[in-house]
């Protein structure tokens, strides 16, 4: 049975605009602490730019380390968002309503964060522009469109632009609510952003079509982005463990696994912070956990495929790499930790209804998934480079430096801070969607019980 509460429009406005209208001290302390961590990371980046990449743990032959791992991780998180939002909109899943905005916003901020990683990793980020865009006309330097490292920015840029536009269009009716409840400069700001929205029949109809149409267009982008990210590795023939045809779907489903888990984590935190128990209900977490069981198991299937294909080739270097990942320390520890964290602990736990409806256990399992998925990316990227090969005469291992650890840690703070700041300016649960849910729901009596009924339009 669903735990619905009948709410009026005014109550919904009041509840969902609470994050914008109230100014609790804890909020600013939290934002301040996160901002401080981001500032420290800025200092670390500046230090690195000044001294060069030598201050990182990168050394031949391991030239992709924490930064690229973190890039792939945040691109993965970004997939939650629009995937979750788009699929749930397309199938008109009723429980999508509180999840879509948080998912879309998480997409935007994690993508922005992801994009900073290769720029930082480049050491001289301004030079990246010359190999991504045809800018250096004077010297005749053009991007090599045959390189996966040029496909990647084109995909990520497309995804980021689309996600920002998607969030903005869906926000317009909610901005109008904020406009109607504010005065002074805030009223002027929201009036400009609301574009003169009045809530006419035409505007609502197009708003509904926008959700479905944009979802349909963004889904192919979403699939392409992580496929192309996987080709950053798979298109390289020289590194064992990377050159795999199954990488694209493996990366995409892995991204969905980590991303949906991150959305659940964020939803639970927001629910507690802004007292949104009537909107983000236990039934929503229950439904998301069931979805995660399917996603995680599909991801695990692709993981097994990828591993087996590696062994099945019977190529010495490939098998040597797998041995290194599974039996040699420290890789073996990371390998076991990633499997246990991302599958063997959370999935069996989600089989129990009591876990799916428990706030602390859902937080625990979804955070665990992302610890595991971060390690998964690390295990994919670094051991392949670190494996000793013939004719390699300069030999260094890889131990991340303090600079890398600070920057990677700060990316988590940055995404959290940006989500919190967004919640201060815009509602994080779609108000129009929540109200529509109330308009369309009713109770019908079947025998001796009353059950919730939802009217659905074609």
């Amino acid at each position, binding site marked *: 049975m669903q735990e619905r509460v009948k709410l*009026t*429009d*005014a109550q919904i*406005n009041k509840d969902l605009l609470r994050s914008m209208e109230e100014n609790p001290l804890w909020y600013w302390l939290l934002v301040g602490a996160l901002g401080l961590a981001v500032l420290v990371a800025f200092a670390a980046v500046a230090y690195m730019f000044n001294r060069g990449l030598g201050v990182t743990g990168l050394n031949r032959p391991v030239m992709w380390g924490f930064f690229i791992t973190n890039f792939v991780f945040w691109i993965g998180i970004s997939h939650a968002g629009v995937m979750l939002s788009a699929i749930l909109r397309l199938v008109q899943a009723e429980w999508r309503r509180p999840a879509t905005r948080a998912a879309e916003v998480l997409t935007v901020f994690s993508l922005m964060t992801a994009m900073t990683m290769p720029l930082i990793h480049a050491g001289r980020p301004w030079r990246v522009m010359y190999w991504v865009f*045809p800018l250096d006309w004077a010297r*005749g*330097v*053009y*991007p090599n*469109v*045959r*390189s996966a490292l*040029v*496909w990647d920015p*084109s*995909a990520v*840029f*497309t995804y980021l*632009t*689309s996600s920002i*536009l*998607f969030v*903005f*269009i869906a926000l*317009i009716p909610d901005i109008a*609510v904020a406009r*109607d*409840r504010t005065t002074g400069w805030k009223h002027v700001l929201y*009036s400009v952003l*609301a*574009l*003169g*929205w*009045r*809530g*006419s*029949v*035409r*505007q*609502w*109809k*197009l*708003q*509904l*079509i*926008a959700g479905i*149409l*944009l979802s349909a*267009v*963004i889904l192919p*982008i979403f699939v*392409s982005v992580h496929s*192309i990210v996987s080709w950053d590795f798979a298109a390289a023939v020289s590194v064992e463990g990377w050159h795999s045809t199954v990488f694209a779907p493996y990366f995409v489903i892995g991204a969905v696994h980590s991303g949906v888990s991150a959305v659940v984590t964020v939803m639970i935190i927001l629910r507690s912070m802004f007292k949104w128990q009537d909107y983000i209900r236990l039934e929503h977490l229950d439904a998301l956990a069931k979805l995660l069981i399917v996603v995680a198991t599909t991801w695990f299937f692709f993981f097994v495929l990828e591993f087996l294909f590696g062994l099945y080739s019977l190529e010495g270097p490939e098998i040597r790499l797998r041995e290194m990942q599974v039996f040699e320390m420290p890789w073996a520890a990371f390998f076991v930790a990633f499997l246990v964290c991302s599958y063997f602990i959370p999935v069996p736990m989600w089989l129990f209804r009591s876990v799916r409806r428990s706030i602390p256990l859902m937080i625990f399992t979804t955070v665990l998934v992302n610890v595991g998925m971060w390690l998964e990316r690390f295990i994919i990227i670094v051991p392949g480079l670190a494996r000793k090969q013939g004719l390699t005469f300069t030999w260094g291992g890889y131990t991340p430096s303090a600079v890398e650890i600070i920057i990677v840690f700060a990316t988590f703070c940055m995404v959290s801070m940006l989500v919190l700041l967004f919640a201060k300016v815009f509602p994080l649960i779609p108000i*129009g969607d929540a*109200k*529509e849910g*109330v*308009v369309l729901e009713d109770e019908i009596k079947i025998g001796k019980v009353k059950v919730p009924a939802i*009217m659905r*339009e074609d």
Partner: protein
Amino acid sequence: MANKNVLGLFDNADTAADATDGLMEVGVNQEDFDVLTGSPYPEGAFGEKTPVHHIYVFPLIGALMGLSVAFLLTSGTQIAYPIVTGGKPILSFPAMTIISYEGTLLGAVIFTILGIIFESRLPRARLDPYDPRITEGYIGLLVTCPEERLDAVDQALRRGKAVDVIHEGGRSFRA
């Protein structure tokens, strides 16, 4: 004589739907009134005319433009800086397909957004007549009629139990 707008405000959807019948009785057509709400209602809930739109054309145009730009950019880049690799052709179509795919979808998204804004008749500089109570759950019946029939429409809205009737240029709400 110029047309004027008048807004009747109702505190629930049923009353607003009934009031549209009263408007029809004083000669207001389906095309002459719009319904302003704080949330989407099922189509036809107020007996309003179903809006006609051409939104589906926009992503198609955008996709074609995006594809063209991406194709020109990738082929132009390779032709402008030709590097023969392994005796293969200068234009690498598999690589161009990937960037063209992204360009196509980016064009489709941008044009969809522009289409939604255009078809929603946005941006709009003035909301007059409008009332912020609409986003609090009230229903607004926005009627457009010739100036000489304003009184009849006003009376029809009041007979339909409107809690407030707001005339254009009267108590206004500046966007």
